[in-house]
């Protein structure tokens, strides 16, 4: 009886999420719109920027996650808090922060040219919002690797670097995959910061917004469906 009441809440919240999504997927509108050159370009831009940002996040995330998992040092929890901050700051604010910084510091002002309304601006935003997911996932991976395993490897003659590549890294393969997917997915979702930093080249979420504003719901539906399918596919791999 008690459980039945509880289940009612579960079913209601499930339907709240499920019905709109399933309705959207079954009423995608005119899918031929997806073949529009602007749409294809937007998908290319989004996925490429996502891939580049995720690669950078991976390169920085592995050493960062390792150090955070294996060492204690002063201000470590402050440092961890800062690394998580991009998850807490509102999306449009992130755009303002990055832009203010670039235009505020004289010696890096020149970078603005490569960032504002530029492909690399998209990459920077994606990296900024996605990196915490990468770091946390990889740090959790290293934390789950028993340190005794690394110790044994070393007593058997493997140096620290050798142990890292031979033992630790292969053991966190799944965490690396989930870090990659999460930070990629977080990146390509972003629109608030992108509107501020790099309206052009248009990413898919920006294009959806633009089509909606200019031509209404029906014009943005098919593109949305395409984007949902990408997200769900990524998500399915993750699970």
């Amino acid at each position, binding site marked *: 009886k008690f459980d039945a009441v509880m289940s009612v809440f579960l079913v209601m919240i499930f339907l709240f999420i499920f019905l709109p999504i399933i309705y959207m997927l079954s009423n995608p509108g005119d899918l031929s719109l997806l073949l529009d050159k602007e749409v294809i370009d937007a998908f290319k831009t989004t996925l490429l920027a996502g891939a580049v940002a995720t690669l950078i996040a991976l390169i920085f995330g592995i050493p960062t996650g390792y150090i955070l998992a294996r060492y204690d040092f002063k201000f470590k929890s402050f440092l961890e808090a800062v690394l998580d901050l991009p998850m807490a700051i509102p999306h449009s604010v992130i755009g303002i922060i990055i832009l203010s910084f670039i235009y505020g510091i004289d010696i890096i002002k020149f970078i603005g040219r490569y960032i504002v309304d530029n492909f690399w601006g998209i990459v920077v935003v994606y990296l900024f919002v996605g990196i915490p997911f990468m770091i946390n996932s990889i740090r959790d991976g290293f934390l789950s690797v028993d340190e005794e395993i690394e*110790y*044994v490897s070393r007593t058997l*003659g493997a140096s620290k670097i050798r142990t890292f590549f031979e033992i630790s890294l292969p053991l966190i393969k799944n965490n690396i995959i989930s870090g990659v997917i999460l930070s990629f997915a977080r990146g390509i979702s972003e629109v608030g910061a992108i509107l501020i930093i790099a309206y052009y080249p248009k990413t898919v979420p920006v294009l959806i917004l633009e089509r909606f504003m200019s031509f209404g719901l029906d014009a943005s539906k098919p593109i949305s469906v395409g984007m949902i399918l990408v997200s769900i596919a990524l998500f399915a791999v993750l699970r």
Partner: protein
Amino acid sequence: MLKVENLSKIWKDFKLKNVSFEMDREYCVILGPSGAGKSVLIKCIAGILKPDSGKILLNGEDITNLPPEKRNVGYVPQNYALFPNKNVYKNIAYGLIIKKANRLEIDRKVKEIAEFLNISHLLDRNVKTLSGGEQQRVALARALILNPSILLLDEPTSAVDIKIKENIISELKKIKHIPVLHITHDLAEARTLGEKVGIFMNGELIAFGNRDILKKPKNKKVAEFLGFNIINDKAIAPEDVIIKDGNEGEVVNIIDYGKYKKVFVKYNGYIIKAFTERDLNIGDNVGLEFREETKLS
């Protein structure tokens, strides 16, 4: 030959205080209660932890500041720490692969050591499917294959049940050609395996010598840890208490271990532990005789 001189280390909640001892090509067991920091000692010798002060010499060479990979010690941690992404064969061969031994030699040595430890039938197995006793043997084989200058065992039987424990002890007895430093909280292990025995409490090595030190505790703390009865300043091992007819004592508790019973007897205000094969009940009156006593300093 291993020589540890005035070793001190604080790590997490554990500490070593000024530990010194020396052992030869022999089987040395360091006995101490769980959580006393015995692992810190082993980790310092393996090079995993850097001592705060003191010196470690292995076969005459000062290894205090060498990284673990340059020490040639065999290390078997408490949880065995097998490489979960490698099969049994690859686990055992790991050290030789790192040393870039040739493939035929690796194969020969793995098979030899597997035979020695009765795990030849396990070589293709995934380590996650092994029982506790099997994991233990694989970890042992992985450490022994490099012919280490010393084998370090951290509570090798703490994770297995009594039958497997007896099995492992019999395997360990077979290791004759390499000195072993074995830490444990289990008295039977120390009595059974130790050629040299140390007693470790609160970060200090409070006794070290041949097996006799288990029979003759030097002070009250050691005596208590070893389960001796303490009357005034004398220690009496439970096995040296003989239960006879009489009524100086009253039985307050009995645990039936099958072959014998452990009885707790109230005697002159002390609770005395003793073993007996008599059929006693709680409340019975008995007499006590002490076969041997050790004076505590």
